[in-house]
């Protein structure tokens, strides 16, 4: 292996996927999964910036009662676009298409994903979809909320058709990524790597891909029907024409509930990797975590009605969905307990990725448990459409997925770009983001339980203080994010060169150099248990971890 032969960090950057060719075409039309992953990463971060700015605009507007910086119509548009941009353009492709694309073939020791052209098509569709969505913003935005509920969405004058067309195209992009991952995991595993020898990240991506393939087409047809409804007045969702608007909600949530697992499952995969590596301990309950990923994917299709408890859905279905909703908590808790048990008696190192992973467990724990309140019928009728739901959603999506995304980004950053970031700033900003996040959303939990409805432009006196605190928290978070952006960009320019294996992981992606060569591996990597750290040892001379040969044949 090249890592064993080159203990010294070379002065000249060896040829790798970043510098093997250059020019716009060599990137935009590349079939290399690593470059596609990096392009995805840049794109979703740009979208995260747009969505984040909108979030700050919302919080600034709500800083004081009455009008602060924008009119109520603009406010409706901004919260709609914040939701749509963050969900369709950032968080759904976030982990699978950006980080997953980069690491999945590396973790399999493969040269590429099984269908590289489809992978590129997925990215191009993403770009087209993003442009269409941005077009709807430029033309004046949409004010329906990101759920596009009929009948308002079929009658409003804003640009719903364009935004939904964008989301429709993005759906194809998502399906292609998921499809590709399933095929790759099925057909490209190296000799010696069985299903239960895969890193758990791959199980998580596999479960995610199942949902992407099975659920996204239903979103496609839903949005298509909505567009047809608006353009031609077909009447299926329009009560004025005898249609059924509750059916729209069934259609929408049949996709969009599983979609939240598209967002959280890969996050759980990242955490499974990081907890084990930074505890230097074999992951506890490998099979339980693997199966629970698949179980979450399966259960996710059976609970969508819990978004519709107050929509006019029948009482029978309300009860069935409420009962089924609790079943999802079981596999989620299985993962949680396994992570905690993995850390037990481990030798824990608090590097930036691990800090994020710990924050994830804290925030996701709160998000998950408040989900149980909302899943039980009687409480939900009270809390439905309040800030409690907003806070719960953000605890899972931000506290869960975005924090895990940041964990993964910091974890694989040295592999992606071959540079180390400033570790101290990394830890500090992780803590700032977490603290700011809690200030923002704990205030919203309190407001919600006291009856502050979501999506309102104005509020009564008694919520003034809590809204003020919440807005302040969001500014703290923003500071944290600008710090992250700052030191990550700096590391690209002047960060120290990264070792092939800076964290001491036993998974295959760390067996190649950082950044990897164009075809990923110079020699076929040695397939081994990804959580067996006995053969990975710190090498002071090179400043990273190397594999030591052992007499015992690895399991």
């Amino acid at each position, binding site marked *: 292996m090249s890592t064993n032969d080159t203990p010294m960090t070379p002065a000249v950057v060896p040829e790798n996927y970043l510098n093997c060719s250059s020019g716009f075409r060599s990137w935009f039309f590349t079939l290399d999964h690593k470059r596609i992953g990096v392009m995805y990463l840049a794109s979703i971060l740009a979208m995260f910036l747009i969505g984040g700015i909108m979030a700050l605009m919302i919080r600034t507007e709500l800083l004081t009662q009455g009008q602060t910086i924008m009119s109520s119509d603009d406010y409706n548009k901004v919260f709609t676009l914040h939701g749509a941009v963050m969900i369709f353009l950032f968080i759904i492709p976030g982990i699978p298409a950006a980080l997953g694309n980069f690491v999945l073939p590396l973790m399999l020791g493969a040269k590429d994903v099984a269908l590289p052209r489809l992978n590129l098509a997925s990215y191009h569709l993403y770009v087209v979809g993003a442009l269409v969505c941005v077009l709807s913003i430029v033309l004046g935005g949409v004010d329906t909320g990101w759920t596009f509920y009929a009948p308002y969405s079929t009658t409003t004058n804003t640009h719903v058709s364009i935004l939904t067309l964008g989301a429709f195209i993005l759906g194809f992009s998502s399906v292609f990524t998921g499809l590709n991952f399933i095929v790759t995991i099925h057909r490209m595993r190296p000799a010696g790597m069985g299903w239960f020898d895969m890193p758990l990240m791959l199980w998580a991506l596999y479960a995610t891909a199942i949902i992407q393939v099975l659920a996204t*087409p239903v979103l496609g047809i839903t949005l298509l029907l909505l567009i047809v409804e608006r353009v031609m007045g077909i009447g299926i969702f329009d009560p004025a024409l005898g249609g059924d608007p509750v059916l729209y909600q069934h259609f929408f949530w049949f996709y969009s509930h599983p979609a939240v697992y598209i967002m959280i499952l890969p996050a759980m995969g990242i955490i499974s990797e990081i907890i084990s590596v930074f505890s230097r301990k074999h992951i506890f309950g490998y099979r339980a975590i693997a199966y629970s990923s698949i179980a979450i994917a399966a259960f996710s299709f059976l609970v969508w009605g819990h978004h519709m408890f107050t929509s006019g859905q029948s009482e029978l279905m309300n009860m069935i969905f409420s009962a089924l909703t609790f079943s999802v908590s079981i596999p989620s808790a299985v993962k949680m307990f396994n992570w905690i048990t993995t850390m037990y008696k481990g030798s824990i190192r608090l590097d930036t990725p691990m800090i994020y992973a710990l924050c994830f467990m804290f925030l996701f724990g709160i998000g998950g448990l408040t989900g149980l309140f909302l899943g039980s019928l009687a409480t939900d009728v009270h809390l439905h459409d309040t800030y409690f739901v907003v806070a719960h959603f953000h605890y899972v999506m931000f506290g869960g997925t975005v924090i895990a995304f940041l964990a993964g980004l910091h974890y694989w950053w040295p592999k992606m770009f071959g540079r180390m970031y400033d570790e101290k700033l990394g830890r500090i900003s992780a803590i700032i983001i977490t603290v700011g996040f809690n200030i923002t959303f704990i205030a919203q939990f309190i407001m919600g339980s006291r009856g502050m409805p979501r999506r309102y432009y104005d509020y009564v006196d008694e919520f003034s203080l809590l809204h003020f605190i919440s807005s302040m928290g969001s500014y703290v978070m923003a500071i944290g994010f600008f710090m992250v952006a700052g030191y990550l960009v700096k590391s690209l320019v002047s960060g120290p060169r990264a070792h092939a294996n800076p964290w001491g992981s036993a998974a295959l992606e760390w067996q190649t150099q950082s950044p990897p060569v164009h075809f990923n591996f110079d020699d076929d990597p040695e397939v081994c248990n990804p959580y067996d750290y006995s053969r990975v040892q710190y090498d002071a001379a090179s400043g990273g971890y190397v594999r030591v040969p052992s007499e015992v044949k690895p399991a």
Partner: protein
Amino acid sequence: MSDSQSSSHVDSAAHAANPNLQHHFDSMEQQYESGKLGMWLFLVTEILLFGGLFCAYAVYRHNHPEIFTYAHQFLDKSLGGFNTIVLIVSSLTMAMAVRAAQLGQRRLLTTCLALTLACAFLFLGVKFVEYEHKWKHGLLWGKNYEVQGEMAGATEALMIPAAPSQSGSAADVDPNATILPRAARAPEGLAAEVGDHGDGVADAADDHATHGLEPKNVHLFFGIYFVMTGLHGIHVLAGIGVITWLLIRSLRGDFGPDYFAPVDFTGLYWHVVDLIWIFLFPLLYLID
């Protein structure tokens, strides 16, 4: 989609043995099996896409059987049946094309692809005749439903006035305005239906059909009909595109026992298009 899927095999990498083998695969078999699995997954997404429409169909048919029994009379069973046969024939020729490609029978392959293509055009032609007929008689979706010509006789007893009333003309101008006038009309319709509820509920649907009484919201049937057959038609069009591309490549002699994946995968796609029609035909044309 099947296009980008199978065209990935055109890439000629450094593998000396077969120029169609891509660099990241070890063998043609691995490449073929990967593509096939990907194609099947794609087909499942197609089935779920149509699944949404079948769901809309099932919900409305279950709750408003009278609309379906009444409205399906306006569809031409014979043309629908003829189109079913056309698609079945095209499925056979497609399956034959796959077999011919696998066995390297180039002339047969070209013939079969051409026949499949002809069937696809024939299908669309018949579909066009059907659509035109409905267009002429105003048998359309939603607010465009306005029965004309000889069909109008059956709709004397309309519960919603078809002639442009005050509210009707407002509806044409401003989509925002539709919600109020339409809703305002509903009570009349409801009142009429309450009457039906009084005597023999189960027979209500039949009464409507046999007495030529038009039930409320017939346009929902046509809405569903046009969306389902329209989306299916778009898939036929996409199939025509891909099969044409295959035809050109087959004339060039690209396919043989070593390389037939594009024909095979397009075949799978085409069979799914046939499969969906197999369900659409009885559900839309053969009610009752």
